[in-house]
């Protein structure tokens, strides 16, 4: 299978703090990759590089054969529209209603009639289990509802690659499970590749074809859910089992 995304030796420091220190990772078409790692470990920063929202200090992000890191802000835009991103905090436009938020990516892409847009919006809200919420403003939604609207907005234009930044944190277990199923289902149905960042190992096992652990700025380990569970490496085991040691205590 050909790789839709390749990340080569990515380095990035923020405020003299080396966050990414040589990340190598690839994703093949239709694959579900889950990235796990400690909080503050640079997972969101990595996703921002894939979308071209941040430029690396060195290294490359290759999306469908195009070196995204070499393009300037405006040249990136057409390629970005082929990637969808669910931001960790949703990032809904708070001056637009739910409906307008969902219609936004479609309008920006162009080529959709108003009828088609409104059908797609209804369908997308249906899928994330929020039918009839079209007219609400983001400020009127609960945290979990915002997340689901943001998810609907991210997938509505059916991008080839979806980036999910912690899609299930802050959701109740039932909704979280339905979101996990949704991610897999959408991926299969629309032949999307998914990169999902999560802390939640239950979600990870559910979604992943492959799990990659980001540790100290590098991909420390990658493998299938079965492999990662069987792996005896202490760093991997500690994360997978959720064990903290005295020196990890939050002071």
């Amino acid at each position, binding site marked *: 299978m050909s790789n839709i995304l390749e990340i080569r030796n990515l380095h990035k420091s923020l405020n003299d703090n080396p966050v990414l220190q040589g990340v190598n990772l690839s994703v093949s078409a239709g694959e579900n990759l889950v990235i796990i790692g400690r909080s503050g470990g640079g997972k969101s920063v990595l996703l*921002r590089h894939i979308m071209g929202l941040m430029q690396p200090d060195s290294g490359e992000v290759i999306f469908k054969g195009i070196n995204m890191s070499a393009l300037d802000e405006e040249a990136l*835009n057409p390629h970005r529209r082929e990637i969808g991103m669910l*931001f960790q905090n949703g*990032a809904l436009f*708070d001056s637009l209603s739910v409906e307008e938020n969902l219609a*936004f990516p479609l309008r*920006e*892409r162009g080529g959709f009639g108003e009828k088609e847009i409104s059908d797609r919006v209804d369908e997308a809200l249906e899928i994330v289990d929020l039918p009839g919420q079209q007219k609400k403003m983001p400020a009127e939604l609960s945290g979990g509802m915002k997340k689901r609207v943001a998810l609907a907005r991210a997938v509505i234009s059916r991008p080839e690659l979806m980036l999910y930044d912690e899609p299930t944190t802050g959701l109740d277990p039932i909704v979280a499970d339905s979101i996990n199923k949704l991610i897999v289902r959408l991926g299969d149905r629309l032949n999307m590749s998914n990169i999902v960042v999560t802390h939640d190992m239950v979600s990870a096992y559910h979604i992943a074809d492959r799990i990659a652990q980001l540790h100290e700025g590098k991909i420390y380990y990658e493998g299938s859910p079965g492999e990662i569970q069987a792996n005896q490496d202490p760093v991997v085991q500690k994360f997978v089992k959720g064990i903290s040691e005295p020196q990890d205590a939050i002071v």
Partner: protein
Amino acid sequence: MTEAVENVFAAIGRWLIGGIRSAGAITLLFLNILRCMVKYPIRWRLFLQQMYFIGVKSQVVVLTTGAFVGAVFAAQIHFQFIKFGMQSAVGATVSVAMCRELGPVFCCLLLAGRVGAAMAAEISSMKNTEQIDALRAMGVYPVEYLGVPRFLAMLVSTPVLTGLVLIVGIACGYLVAVPILGVDSAYYWDNTIKYTAVSDVLIGLTKGFLFSMIIAVISCYKGFNPELGTAGVGRTTTEAVVISSLAILISDFFFTFILNSLFLGGA
């Protein structure tokens, strides 16, 4: 002691370098907005929204300002001119001063407070909540989406608002001077019309136009480059207003000379 002096110089140096850098960045944003106006189709819906917010919603504030500035200025001029028996010149003085200085400057200082603050606050909180990144992620260039409609709406509405301020200010000056302070109505009008040239009005409107760019670009710049956090939005907004206001007052000095020689050939 010498160390303290060095520190002071270092601080002044840093402040100067920071100022020059921001001025450069603001100029680049200005050019970028102009470029985006040509390169991308205009977003009429956003433009009209901004027109409504800037042009329509500012009227009460701006007109009240114009009315009282005109009224107070007429009274003050009257109190001085009456000493020399020159009451009939009050009208002309008020009108020329309103057109050339008071109208555009007061109007735009108020717009900096109302509109500039809103622009900086809105854009900087969008930046803080990753909405700007969401725009970018959907392939939309923020300067084009957020900057251009605001800039254009400012450009169109400010000269109109300035014109309204001139009219209201001159009218209120008349109301104070003639019915209240008892200046002869015929002389007042004659002199007003005789000594107010078209160029005075044009200078006022041109100043309004130039100030509107200053307000829009500085406020957008502050919005796009905010301090982080909720307190940061507050500080960013304040800075946008203070810097735009100072820029208006300082540039007014230069515009005065430039426009004077443009419209009156240096007279």
